[in-house]
């Protein structure tokens, strides 16, 4: 039995030029890199030539049409605008850091899941390889516990396409918090690949606050490998972009590892938000929880595709996956596809999905106490989101997320300004 479903794709490589039209000038501009980087770029380029960008014919991209966005919006390659602050001690910036990279990190980058072509639909990763130049490396040695978070702000400027690759390695028993802020100012595309390696007993809190401009596109590809008794907590807030994809692949590789992959989507107008998560239990006694809540208005479209894959060896797995959606308008659409694939016999796994409207009875009750309708609605929506927000264990980040949610709820009235791109 193969570990992951292999999709038989009908590649439409004729869309390759949408991704690669800027490649020659990019490659000519950024030559000061080691040979292995040039080779990786070329390999990515060749793959995209061959396979193109993911189309809606691919199962995991059924609801995500990046080529349509790129056809409509002409973008030029630009170097990524990355600002770091907070805890930056073990951070190194690409491409400078590529010159003396340890063999281990080098092979991590080269032998990415794409290298094995396990999925057959990792063209966004290939595209990131083709444009491999920018990003950060956070390499924390063992036994370091840091209170201060590393803040990474990535700004997408108008009419640009940017690529970032981040590599995060947390040594045994170290504890780190990372907060990513994604902001863009207009039509743009940011393609990100983040690879995370957690050593034994390491703990990483990984927060991502995506407030991109509502005309932009964002594709995040995150791959996490979790060692024995290590802990990974992810929370993604998706509020921006016309088109956004949050693809996460977690491998629980050591016994007793835990992961929490949570998030909220707050989108309106013609925004589209796609969350695609695969969690692989490859060792016994691991815990994985996915908990997403989405609030959608206007003609927004959300997709939640979550999969828990329990390998034969992964006895005593505790896997859980939940997607709850609040539809504020009759024209908003939620696509949900929860999946469990279980090959071990002693496991506890569950999944569920709900989609519904605001509770009218509750709304009337609040209004009957003098609370105006808009405020009553906001109170109920906030309560709905709070059930996931409260699981953020970093207090400062939790408060930030709460504020963003509140602001969104206040502005939402008449805020169908997401022009969309279709």
């Amino acid at each position, binding site marked *: 039995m193969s570990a992951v479903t292999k999709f038989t794709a009908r590649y439409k490589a004729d869309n390759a030029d949408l991704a690669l039209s800027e490649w020659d000038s990019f490659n000519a501009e950024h030559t000061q890199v080691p040979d292995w980087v040039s080779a990786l770029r070329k390999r990515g380029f060749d793959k995209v030539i061959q396979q193109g960008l993911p189309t809606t014919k691919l199962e995991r991209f059924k609801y995500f049409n990046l080529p349509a966005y790129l056809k409509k919006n002409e973008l030029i390659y630009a170097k990524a605008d990355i600002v770091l602050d907070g805890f930056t001690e073990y951070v190194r910036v690409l491409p400078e850091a590529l010159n003396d990279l340890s063999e281990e990190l080098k092979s991590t980058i080269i032998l990415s899941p794409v290298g094995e072509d396990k999925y057959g639909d990792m063209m966004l990763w290939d595209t990131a390889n083709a444009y491999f130049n920018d990003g950060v490396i956070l390499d924390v040695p063992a036994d370091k516990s840091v209170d201060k978070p590393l803040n990474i702000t990535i700004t997408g400027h108008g009419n640009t396409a940017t690529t970032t690759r981040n590599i995060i390695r947390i040594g045994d028993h170290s504890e780190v918090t990372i907060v990513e802020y994604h902001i863009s100012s207009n039509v743009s595309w940011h393609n990100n690949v983040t690879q995370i390696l957690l050593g034994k007993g390491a703990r990483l809190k990984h927060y991502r606050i995506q407030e991109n401009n509502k005309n932009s596109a964002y594709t995040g590809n995150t791959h996490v490998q979790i060692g024995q008794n290590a802990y990974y907590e992810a929370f993604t807030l998706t509020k921006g972009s016309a088109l956004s994809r949050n693809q996460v692949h977690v491998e629980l590789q050591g016994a007793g590892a835990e992961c929490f992959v949570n998030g909220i989507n707050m989108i309106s107008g013609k925004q589209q938000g796609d969350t695609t998560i695969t969690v692989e239990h490859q060792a016994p006694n691991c815990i994985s929880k996915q908990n997403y809540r989405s609030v959608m208005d206007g003609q927004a479209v959300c997709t939640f595709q979550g999969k828990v894959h329990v390998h034969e060896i992964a006895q005593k797995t505790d896997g859980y996956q939940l997607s709850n959606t609040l539809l504020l308008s009759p024209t908003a659409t939620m696509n949900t596809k929860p999946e469990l694939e279980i090959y071990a016999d002693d496991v506890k796994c569950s999944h569920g999905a709900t989609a519904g409207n605001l509770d009218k009875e509750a709304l009337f009750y609040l209004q*009957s106490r003098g609370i105006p309708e808009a405020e009553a609605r906001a109170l109920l929506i906030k309560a709905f989101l709070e059930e996931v927000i409260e699981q953020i264990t970093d207090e400062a980040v939790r408060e930030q997320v709460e504020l963003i949610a509140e602001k969104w709820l206040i502005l939402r009235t008449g805020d169908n300004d997401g022009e969309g791109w279709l």
Partner: protein
Amino acid sequence: MIKIKNLHAEIDGTEILKGLDLEIGAGEVHAVMGPNGAGKSTLSYVLAGRDGYEVTEGSAELDGVNILDMDPDERAAAGLFLAFQYPVEIPGVQMTTFLKTALNAVRKARGEDELDAIGLLKLMKSKCKELGISDEMMKRAVNVGFSGGEKKRNEVLQMAMLEPKFAVLDETDSGLDIDALKVVADGVNALRSEGRSFLVITHYQRLLDYIKPDHVHVLAKGKIVKSGSADLALELEKNGYADIVGEAA
């Protein structure tokens, strides 16, 4: 102070209130009794402005203003309060947040100063104490996990905080044990004043022993079919509705 005239209301095209008249003077307590399905809760919902209840004829005035055109929150600001027969559970919204939001919304609409967190907490604590509600309950979500009796007490707490001019209590006594009934009745009595009127919907004489009504009405088949003094309730307890409802039909 409250004038309901020839009120007709429908749910999904079915007429439930069929020309209801009722007048309640300032400071008065009126009780409404009547068989199940008579339209008592419908009257309370129509007054409070719940969706799905269509008023086809008639008016309901509070201090000379027809409230039927107002949104539910505007009615609350104007001084109406409904203690629900079935209070609604609202997961995720903490009691304290709820009370603060409601009280300040109403105060703002009435042109009064908003209360700060400390002022609210003080007020809440003293009202809770009067009604035998534990502070711990205020940390829970609105009505979630409350017992039937706790929910009813919670309705009275909200009434005490919002200080309405006109309160409709829809079977606030049902589900209360004997001691709780007394506590709730005391809570209501404490709020009785010259400027405040009550419409108490109940099936049982017992509540009216504690909250002495000025008038008692019988609502049947969508109309007030009989009105009288407090003694009418005693008579009903003895003889039931058969005679009266029969007479009206």
